[in-house]
């Protein structure tokens, strides 16, 4: 049996870069998809709204783990092979698109109707209204819940370990299988996630309080 020493600690701590990279990829993909879902969800065309609602309900009503399994196995149906990294990045991006889409829809809807009316009286069409009038105002309100979801997403990347992607949780399991020091090893991993997520949570909460004061 291997002993649990400095090398093992480093192996686990260094694999945190894959957690961060996967989080970044999923957040980037989710931001693009989420904006699309939010725009569809607030569209004037009913069929676009319904498509977005269906997408959101589907992803909010099924386990993320199943979404990752399907992201892993569905491409195989079309003869495409994906590795665990690709499946995790795609699955988490689709997942994040649904949640960010729903969060951002709320932020878009909070922008007062008068802003739409005023900007269309100024002769602006939908895209320029969105870009110059509505989204900049929605953006401010969106920061706290978006940071909150980012924390969820970083934690969610741990599930990529189950489909075999070696990020920090998987690395910890590998080391644990060789050294069998579960309390220390998973404690270390929990601490690592905490060090990443806690400051974000605090930042999100502070922004929320600031916003609440500003809009009171």
């Amino acid at each position, binding site marked *: 049996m291997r002993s649990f020493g400095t090398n093992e600690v480093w192996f686990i701590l260094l694999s945190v870069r894959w957690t961060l990279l996967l989080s970044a990829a999923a957040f980037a993909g989710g931001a693009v998809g989420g904006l699309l879902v939010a725009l569809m969800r607030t569209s004037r065309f009913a069929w676009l709204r319904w498509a977005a609602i269906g997408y959101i309900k589907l992803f909010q009503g099924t386990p993320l783990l199943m*979404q990752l399994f399907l992201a892993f196995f569905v491409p195989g149906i079309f003869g495409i092979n994906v590795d665990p990294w690709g499946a995790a990045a795609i699955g988490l991006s689709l997942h994040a698109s649904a949640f960010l889409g729903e969060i951002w829809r709320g932020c878009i809807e909070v922008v007062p109707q008068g802003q739409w009316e005023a900007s269309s009286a100024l002769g602006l069409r939908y895209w320029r209204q969105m870009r110059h009038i509505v989204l900049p105002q929605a953006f401010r309100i969106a920061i706290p819940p978006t940071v909150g979801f980012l924390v969820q997403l970083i934690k969610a990347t741990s599930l990529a370990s189950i489909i075999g992607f070696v990020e920090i949780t998987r690395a910890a399991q590998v080391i644990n299988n060789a050294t069998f020091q579960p309390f220390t090893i998973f404690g270390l991993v929990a601490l690592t996630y905490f060090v990443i997520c806690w400051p974000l949570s605090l930042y999100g909460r502070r922004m929320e309080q600031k916003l609440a004061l500003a809009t009171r």
Partner: protein
Amino acid sequence: MNYVFEFSQVFAAWDELLAGALRTLWLSAISMVLGLAVAVLGALAKANGPTWLRRIIDGYIEVIRNTPFLIQIFMVFFGLPAIGLRLEADEAALLAMVINVGAYGIEIIRAGVESIPKGQIEAGRALGLRPLQIFRLVVLKPALQAVYPSLTSQFILLMLNSSVCSAIAANELTAAANDIQARNFRSFEVYFVVTAIYFAMSVMFWGIFTWIERTFLARPASR
């Protein structure tokens, strides 16, 4: 696309899927009830308890909300035996789920309790209600009404998250799916069907929660 779908092998294992789904429902329902108890007691202690207790509860909430559920399960199942507490996979799954949902629940209930105007409690006292009656009727019920949507979404999320318990081979739906696909290699078909079952269970819980709200939490009709 030359893939041949083979769902019959999945449906042949319907008894395993049904048993798994029932285990998931059971596990979720129990942890919702226990989690709600933890949440109410925790919120109560956080509002009225001594400072040291509040600090402990704050620490518990922050630790749970900023670490992944999967790691929490591993800590309970693999970590606790190191300090002499050995649990079966199902017990560990249940404990981890209660610990997890309790932390989110405390914050939700606290927000609900804080939304109650102080005058309402004073009015209850003026009417001669006993402290327990005040807590139950004037504080807890309106608080639950106020935060019911967030509380129930958290519960549905808990049910969906229970699939992660398959990582320690607890007896539930995802573990059943893993067993079936390990036998017949119809991975896509198995997980597709199981995803649909989870979706149906979310819809079912949503229906039950709506029914509970209408039956037990309905506000008196306002003028």
